[in-house]
């Protein structure tokens, strides 16, 4: 059986590119949010702990689709008044920006827990050794905690990235032209829903396999110098 895409192949390829762009941007935002959340949750300051806990509980308790819709449709009024204040009428959040914010927010909430677990897994003595050597707090974080945390957090982050990649399909609901959106357009033109959605599924499978392979090599690289326990 040959698959006839009726000339929608290039559109799907462009959609794939958009999906990858969206996933990577959301990943960047999510990593920053997750790191901040984890630092807040592990900090000795009580209000910061509450803030971190509030963020991760609230965001993880509400569906991703609801966040996408809320950020896209819910910010229209806010952006309008902001646009008036800045003397830029018609200011609005693009579907891409809304998708990046919503998915980054969700990724960050889960990453908060992953990073927190990784920070807690670093022996206390390492931080104390840094203090004893007279390193500043920022230095301890950037030179001792973060490099070690990275290795421990990587498998968890890999799983989250896989979930993020699949969640990018949700942004098609607000009209961003990624894989699903292009597949939908193809379906309305050709009336062949199964073919197009199956092709979309295969593209997602391919992306997942690529991400899995990439994660495998990154984990291997991060774990060099650590002998794997024989079980």
């Amino acid at each position, binding site marked *: 059986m040959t698959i006839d895409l009726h000339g929608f192949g290039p559109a799907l390829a462009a959609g794939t590119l958009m999906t990858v762009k969206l996933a990577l941007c959301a990943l960047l935002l999510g990593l920053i949010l997750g790191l901040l959340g984890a630092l807040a949750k592990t900090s000795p300051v009580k209000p910061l702990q509450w803030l971190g806990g509030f963020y991760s509980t609230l965001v993880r308790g509400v569906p991703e*689709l609801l966040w996408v819709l809320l950020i896209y*449709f819910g910010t229209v009024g806010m952006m309008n008044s902001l646009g008036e204040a800045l003397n830029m009428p018609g200011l609005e959040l693009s579907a891409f920006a809304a998708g990046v914010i919503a998915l980054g927010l969700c990724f960050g909430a889960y990453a908060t827990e992953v990073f927190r677990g990784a920070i807690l897994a670093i022996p206390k003595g390492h931080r104390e050794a840094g203090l004893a050597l007279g390193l500043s707090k920022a230095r301890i974080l950037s030179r001792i905690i973060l490099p070690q945390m990275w290795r421990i957090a990587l498998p968890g982050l890999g799983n989250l990235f896989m979930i993020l990649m699949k969640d990018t399909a949700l942004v098609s609901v607000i009209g961003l032209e990624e894989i699903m959106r292009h597949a939908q357009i193809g379906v309305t033109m050709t009336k062949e829903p199964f073919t197009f959605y199956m092709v979309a599924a295969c593209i997602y499978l391919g992306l997942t396999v690529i991400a899995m392979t990439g994660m495998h090599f990154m984990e291997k690289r991060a774990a060099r110098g650590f002998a794997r326990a024989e079980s």
Partner: protein
Amino acid sequence: MNWEVIIKWLPRLAQGATLTLELVAIAVVAGLILAIPLGIARSSRHWYVRALPFSYIFFFRGTPLLVQLFLVYYGLAQFDAVRNSSLWPYLRDPFWCTVLTMTLHTAAYIAEILRGALQSIPKGEVEAARALGMSRGKTLFYIMLPRAARIGLPAYSNEVILMLKASALASTVTLLELTGMARTIIARTYLPVEIFFAAGLFYLLISFVLVQGFKLLERWLRVDACQGR
């Protein structure tokens, strides 16, 4: 924040929430039943037994639920054989399509949880059962599955929460569950922030109740005591 609007539409949102609960309940129970043979086959020693559940799990975990939902709801109609079959009244209905997709989707995840649980049963316990003369089937039913149920329960409760959130996708196939209801109300009131906020509260409330329920279940099954080796 316009509280009056939220209170006014609360009954409709609650109506949507019951549909959400219905979807999730059917999906996670049917998914569990489907996942038990899948998970057992997935952890088999023979590659030809493993191959089929492996590819099933690979497909359903590797593609977004939205794609699967559209494949079932819109995609199946492409084939005349499906449209002429006696199942068509069900496959035309968005409710049954969503239930079917969510069940197949969650079954793949639960099967993987079950495989992990089966493989982390201490070897000695299985060997002890075999040494006492239990057959393979008896060992599976009386020793391995009850043990795996306790090891896998925390992960299963995670999966239930994930399905609760995944059920929001049903709104894309015109089903009026919590998110769908919220979108309908917004189309009438033009107050996205208030209504989505209220819907979010519903989700938080449901997941809170589910988490507490699973905590009770874990205590009842003495999961903690069973984890110690």
